[in-house]
């Protein structure tokens, strides 16, 4: 039916040609002719361009514009056939329907209306078929798809069939007298055109009306008689079908009784022997009676026919002068009549299609088939002598067979499968096709009913009669011209099975007959098998059942393609089964399904490779089919992890066959394959990946493959830190590309990173600003699109991209002092990071570092906006996020540091924006934080809260930011120390909950260290020392490197302060301990000790830890030298001073000798400065390191 309906559609469109090409101007005429040619050349995409161009033209007339709507629909239908997937196809068909409806809204009443309604009907049938095809897919919701299919078929019927009841005279070929005034269906449109043409013809024939009426009266007189004769014929045919069966039964009971026959059986046989001849006689008598009854109307018919012939001659003579004028209208009338019948046949066949949407034997299935049968029957009865009538009869018989009415089916089909050619002439192609199809159905019915007699003759077997059976001879005739059609293969195979079944039913006495039948069955099976098409496999099995092996046959492309497609379907089913097993959580079933999937994949791979080899050799092979194989192969190779081969095939399709329906899918496979290879470190694959992605974007810039390719290009640019490439990608992104918002955000995120790192590394500020502007534009375009969609995109990764971008944009807004925008972004209902994290509605973004960053940014924003309740909520959430485990405090500290860093960055941004009022602009920000932090400090004594307050104040106070006044910074440090102090106080309180007490104990060392550090910074040496002593009093903490560093720093700073204050003794003591440490009380290593402790790790490798240790080592060595130098400066005794200076000088020299690098250029400079100071103090020239170089030995003079 598929091919048939397509053909019908093409016929309709082709018939439109003259109607189409009738524009008024050269331009319009040319456009319409061009569209016609483009349809012939199957270039629907270009048709759509032309239609768009023509519709936009001011010169396009309203009539042409109207036609363009219809042609657009046709183009979209054509385009849907090559759509990459079902969704795309469905979308195109929807658009097509809209265009056709737009045309139909203009209430057309001409040929285009017929074509448009027919086109729409076909389109809806296509939609229904698509649903049915989808219902068969593994894992599909078959019931829902079938339901949808039924709806489409119903709509198709409604579009095609007139709602008005045609009261036409039975047997008449004239249009019914009542024609619907409003044209709503294809049938309405044809009927209207028929009425118009009939009126036109009537006008032309007006002068000969009398004679014509007389002629028509004869026709009317003949019609009931004809029906009477036909009725007799039908009854005779029906009776005749019963005769062979009765004869066969009679022959069976007339054979000699067998010893195995039971007495009951023998009794039944005797009874039948009495009844059957009587029944047979009765039927034969009935047939004779009917034939006699037929004679009377037949004689009357002949009489009227002879009168009609005379009238016909008179009519022809009278019409002769009108011939020329009538020629075109009559031709047109015939054409319209054919169209009317085609439309009605389509309606009947749509009911047949509809039956497929229901479960076999269900009420709906029966109803649809019966309606199809009824309509086909009407057509067959009314137009039995026309091609349409024959086709309708075939359809009717097919439906009867499906409904299990096999006897009726045989009766209906008999006139078709007994069709014979006129003597000396071959059967027409249509006749041959109908005969073959009808016989195929009949054979199936006979086989089902074990009614072998029609083909093999009655029993006992008579070879001569058997051989002359016309049906057997038809089936046995070898195919002479062309390839065996599927229908002929059906006839041959069904005949073979019927012969084999009859042979099997024979008793041992009939072995000879069985052999003859089996030999013929084998012959037919071999013929069907050798063609290697329909029923080839079944034929081979049948031959095997007969004890014969047909052996292999030569493969050709179509058969290999079919094998490959079947193998691929098996693989898809195995994959669906695997998915189902995995979803069910059944491990054993999953393993088994996985094995099966691998096995079927390998089989599909092999079959497809065979098919491709043949397809590439065969110049006549369908290019689309060959490309489909390539695409499937690429997918299978990818699944088998043969990435290089998969990439090569996919790339070939992209490069050379971009417009093949399978190429887009293959492009994605090729991309994924090259990505896998590149991920494995294959540099060439990486280069090819870039080239392919660029080519894909050039080839198709709107589909999913273009989006995939763009993602690849973005990722490659990000990896290469190529900000300019990212800007180019953002600027060149097709407005229609799928997933545009996501792509914009991905590229923007990458570009923002580059901009930030550029800002930090001192890249040209103009370029950085340009990059940031591009980021801003991209995010500002993408986020509203996400909001309009009403939900985050599917997939955790995609959702994260959106939320990260919103966060990034909020940070940019805060930097631009656009607080309202920042809050709006953070609190957006769809993508707002604060909304999502605080509500916990989306687990993909409510956890992890993205959530932490979201909360810290939100906290900053809320504080800045003085929304302290929300800020408090953010803080609480941060605490929750840190959890309660052992690592909680570390996590929390990291979060607070990040928060502080964020605040510092904000202050940096205010400062870097410049202007005299930077401090003034920072003031509200600082004030906001102060208020919030003080509030938190007062109302929330919990460890976490106090820690945050202390950390943030410390960050604000320690920063070197110019927008924080020096005095204010000191205050912040004091407030930090107070917050830490409150924690120590709380530690001493009684009645604390055990959990808090434990937590506080865990924080105690850190808190003491922080207080020591803050006190040192504020010059509160005793307070600092108190904390250090408390810390190091515990021997377990004496090896804590951070505490030792702080202790050494404190001693050095306190020593320097004592020196400045003129307290030489104290200074000397502290500086000595700073350099060399102390061993009594709480042990302090001093800088020298620290250097010794870290030296091993510092030079053990080059990993991050080692490098960190190395930095500390050189810092410590430098501070040893510094301490020594300072000590020398407080000495009053010259000798001691000189000694101390020399010690400092030696320390530096030794360090340099052992570690010439000295930790890099900056440290080298600092060492050298100290050295120069020592050299100056010693009264030497301040030559720095140059003084430490040993002169090279003089080169001895050459001896003569």
């Amino acid at each position, binding site marked *: 039916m598929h091919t048939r309906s397509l053909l019908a559609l093409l016929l309709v469109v082709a018939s439109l040609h003259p109607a189409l090409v009738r*524009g008024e*101007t*050269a*331009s319009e*005429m*040319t456009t319409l*002719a*061009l569209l016609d*040619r*483009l349809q012939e*050349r199957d*270039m629907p995409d*270009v048709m759509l*361009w*032309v239609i768009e*161009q023509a519709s936009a033209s001011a*010169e396009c007339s309203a009539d042409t514009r109207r036609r363009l709507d219809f042609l657009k629909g046709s183009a979209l239908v054509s385009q849907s056939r090559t759509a990459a997937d079902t969704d795309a196809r469905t979308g195109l068909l929807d658009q097509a329907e809209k265009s056709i409806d737009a045309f139909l809204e203009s209430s057309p009443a001409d040929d285009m209306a017929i074509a448009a309604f027919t086109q729409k009907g076909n389109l809806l049938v296509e939609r229904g078929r698509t649903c049915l095809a989808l219902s068969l897919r593994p894992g599909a919701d078959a019931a829902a798809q079938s339901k949808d299919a039924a709806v489409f078929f119903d709509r198709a019927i409604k579009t095609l069939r007139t709602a008005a009841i045609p009261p036409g005279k039975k047997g008449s070929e004239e249009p019914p007298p009542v024609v619907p005034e409003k044209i709503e269906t294809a049938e309405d449109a044809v009927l209207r055109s028929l009425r118009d043409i009939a009126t036109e013809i009537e006008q032309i024939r007006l002068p000969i009306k009398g004679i014509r009426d007389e002629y028509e009266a004869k026709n009317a007189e003949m019609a009931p008689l004809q029906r009477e004769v036909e009725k007799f014929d039908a009854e005779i045919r029906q009776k005749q079908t019963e005769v062979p069966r009765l004869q066969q039964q009679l022959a069976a009971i007339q054979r000699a009784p067998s010893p195995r026959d039971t007495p009951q059986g023998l009794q039944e046989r005797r009874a039948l022997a009495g009844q059957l001849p009587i029944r047979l006689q009765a039927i034969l008598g009935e047939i004779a009676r009917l034939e006699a009854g037929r004679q009377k109307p037949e004689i009357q018919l002949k009489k009227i026919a002879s009168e009609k012939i005379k009238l016909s001659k008179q009519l022809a003579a009278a019409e002769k002068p009108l011939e020329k004028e009538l020629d075109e209208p009559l031709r047109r009338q015939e054409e319209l009549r054919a169209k009317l019948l085609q439309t009605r046949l389509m309606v009947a066949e749509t009911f047949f299609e509809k039956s497929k949407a229901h479960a076999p034997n269900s009420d709906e299935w029966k109803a649809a088939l019966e309606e199809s049968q009824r309509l086909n029957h009407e057509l067959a009865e009314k137009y039995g002598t026309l091609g349409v009538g024959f086709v309708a009869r075939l359809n009717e018989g097919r439906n009867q067979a499906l409904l299990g009415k096999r006897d009726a089916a045989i009766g209906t089909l008999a006139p078709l499968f007994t069709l014979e050619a006129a003597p000396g002439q071959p059967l027409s192609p249509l006749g041959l096709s109908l005969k073959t199809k009808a016989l195929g159905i009949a054979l199936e019915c006979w086989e089902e009913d074990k009614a072998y007699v029609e083909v093999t003759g009655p029993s006992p077997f008579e070879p001569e009669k058997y051989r002359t059976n016309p049906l057997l001879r038809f089936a046995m005739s070898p195919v002479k011209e062309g390839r065996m059609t599927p229908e002929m293969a059906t006839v041959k195979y069904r005949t073979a099975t019927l012969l084999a079944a009859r042979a099997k039913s024979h008793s041992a006495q009939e072995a000879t007959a069985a052999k003859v039948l089996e030999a013929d069955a084998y012959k037919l099976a071999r013929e069907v098998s050798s063609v290697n098409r329909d029923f080839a496999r079944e034929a081979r099995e049948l031959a095997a059942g007969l004890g014969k092996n047909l052996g292999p046959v030569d493969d050709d492309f179509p058969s290999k393609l079919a094998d490959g497609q079947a193998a691929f379907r098996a693989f898809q089913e195995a994959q669906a089964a695997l998915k189902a097993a995995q979803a069910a959580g059944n491990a054993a079933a999953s393993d088994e399904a996985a094995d099966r999937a691998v096995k079927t994949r390998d089989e599909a791979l092999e079959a497809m490779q065979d098919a491709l080899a043949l397809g590439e050799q065969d110049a006549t092979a369908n290019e689309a089919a060959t490309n489909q194989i390539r695409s499937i192969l690429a997918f299978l190779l990818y699944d088998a992890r043969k990435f290089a081969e998969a990439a090569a095939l996919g790339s070939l399709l992209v*490069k*050379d*066959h*971009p*417009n*093949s329906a399978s190429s887009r899918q293959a492009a994605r496979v090729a991309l994924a394959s090259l990505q896998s290879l590149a991920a494995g470190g294959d540099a060439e694959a990486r280069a090819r990946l870039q080239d392919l992605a660029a080519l894909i974007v*050039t*080839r*198709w810039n709107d589909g999913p493959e273009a989006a995939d390719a763009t993602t690849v290009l973005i990722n490659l640019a990000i990896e290469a830190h190529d900000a300019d490439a990212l800007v180019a990608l953002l600027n060149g992104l097709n407005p229609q590309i799928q997933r545009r918002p996501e792509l914009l955000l991905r590229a923007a995120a990458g570009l923002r990173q580059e901009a930030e790192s550029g800002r930090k590394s001192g890249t040209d500020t103009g370029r950085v600003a340009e990059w940031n502007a591009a980021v801003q534009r991209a995010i500002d375009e993408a986020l509203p699109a996400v909001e309009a969609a009403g939900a985050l995109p599917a997939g955790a990764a995609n959702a994260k991209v959106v939320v990260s971008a919103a966060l990034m944009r909020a940070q940019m807004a805060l930097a631009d002092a656009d607080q309202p925008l920042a809050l709006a972004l953070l609190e957006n209902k769809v993508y707002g990071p604060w909304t999502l994290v605080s509500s916990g509605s989306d687990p993909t973004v409510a956890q992890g570092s993205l959530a932490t960053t979201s909360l810290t940014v939100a906290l900053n924003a809320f504080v800045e906006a003085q929304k302290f309740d929300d800020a408090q909520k953010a803080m609480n959430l941060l605490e929750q996020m840190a959890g309660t485990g052992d690592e909680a405090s570390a996590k929390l500290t990291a979060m607070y540091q990040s928060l502080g860093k964020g605040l510092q960055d904000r202050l940096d941004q205010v400062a870097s924006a410049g202007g005299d009022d930077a401090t003034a602009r920072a003031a509200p920000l600082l004030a906001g934080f102060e208020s919030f932090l003080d509030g938190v400090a007062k109302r929330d004594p919990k460890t976490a809260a106090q820690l945050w307050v202390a950390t943030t104040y410390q960050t604000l106070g320690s920063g070197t930011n110019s927008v924080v006044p020096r005095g204010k910074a000191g205050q912040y440090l004091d407030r930090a120390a107070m917050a830490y102090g409150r924690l120590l106080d709380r530690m001493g309180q009684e009645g604390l909950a055990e959990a808090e007490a434990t937590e506080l104990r865990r924080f105690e060392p850190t808190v003491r260290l922080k207080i020591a550090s803050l006190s040192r910074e504020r010059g509160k040496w005793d307070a600092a020392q108190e904390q250090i002593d408390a810390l190091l009093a515990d021997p377990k903490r004496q090896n804590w490197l951070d505490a030792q560093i702080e202790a050494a720093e404190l001693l050095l700073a306190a020593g320097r302060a004592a020196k400045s204050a003129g307290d030489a003794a104290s200074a000397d003591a502290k500086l000595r301990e700073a350099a060399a440490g102390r061993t009594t009380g709480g042990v302090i290593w001093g800088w020298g000790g620290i250097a010794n402790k870290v030296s091993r790790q510092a030079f053990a490798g080059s990993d991050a830890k080692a490098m960190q240790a190395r930095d500390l080592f050189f810092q410590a060595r430098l501070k040893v030298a510094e301490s020594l130098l300072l000590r020398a400066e407080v000495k009053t005794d010259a000798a001691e001073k000189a000694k101390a200076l020399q010690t400092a000088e030696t320390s530096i020299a030794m360090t340099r000798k052992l570690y010439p690098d000295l930790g890099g250029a900056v440290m080298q400079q600092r060492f050298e400065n100290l050295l120069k100071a020592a050299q100056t103090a010693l009264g030497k020239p301040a030559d720095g390191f140059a003084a430490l170089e040993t002169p090279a030995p003089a080169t001895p003079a050459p001896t003569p």
Partner: protein
Amino acid sequence: MITLTGARIRTMAALLVAVIGVAARAEDRVRLRLGTAVAKEAQPKPPRTPRPPELRGTIAQATADAITIETPANVIKKEWVVPTEDVLEVFLDGEPEELRSGRGMVAAGDGAGALEQLAPTESADRATAWERATDAVQAERMFVKSAAHAQRAIRSGEGLEPALAGLRAFLKTHPRSHHTAFVHELMGDVFARMGKPDDALAAYDAIATQSPARRIRADMLKGRLHLDQKRFKDARVAFDKAIAIESPAGDFSAFLEKREARLLLARCFARDSQAADAIALARQLLSEADPADSAGLATIFVVLGEAQQAAGDKNKDALISYLTVDTVHNGVPEAHAEALARLVKLWEKENHPERARDARQTLEQTYPDSPWVRLVRKPAGS
């Protein structure tokens, strides 16, 4: 001046039929250009499918400017004087079929094909027949041969001097032939191919007679030469001059020449970075075109395509124009070949390598000798 008597013509025709087997009827025929005043007069009621009308009779006089034919059987007039620019083709009584085919090919610009057609008539056994042919038929033979040689030389760039000599010889022998203007034009083309633009301009100048159509053509050809030399300003001046020449309202030949000049002016705009003007002019020509004039529409659409391509952002529009030539108005070989060649390039640009391949294949198979084939031929091994 060629003066032929009816008796002589009949004798010669009989001889030719007998000797070289031609099947021409014993009369001359002048096929008229459709749309011209004389064609309208000769065919007052044109058939549904218009066909150029013919005047049948005896050519009494032929000059470089007009042909006089006596038509005793004609119901409208017994003698017609037809300006040569209104003549599509002249069929002489008694001329061999090969000569007619060859002349047709020359008219289509296929000199090589014309020479192939004539080749069988050059055999020794046909020499006598030629000797016995009328002066007019012999003149036609000389015309077809010299014009064909010239066209072949222009296409290949070889044998230009002998071709020129042939054309000169024809003009010297038959100074009053109705082909004179065509031969002058060919001479100009040969000079242009030889790189002698001044000589070419002089040759084109020789075409300009009193007839407006001739004068327009002469200026149009000069403009075309300048256009080929990329001297856009000069080309534009020449085209403007051609377009400005006044002609009577019913002078269809002059109208056609002007249309060609306007089309070339549009090409000039397109090549001189004035794509918008080029498109506007081509569209104007399209709006004026006769829907039935497929050949005219072919040339208009080719020019429109070039203008759209020159715009840089109208590749799809250009594709549509060239596809129109390829699929609808494909009866003009030169225009069709150009459209196909340009389609190859545009399809490649538009990511349709398969369609580019098809267009290239059609071009190579349909017009293997066209210079456009060279432009789109794929390098070996690609």
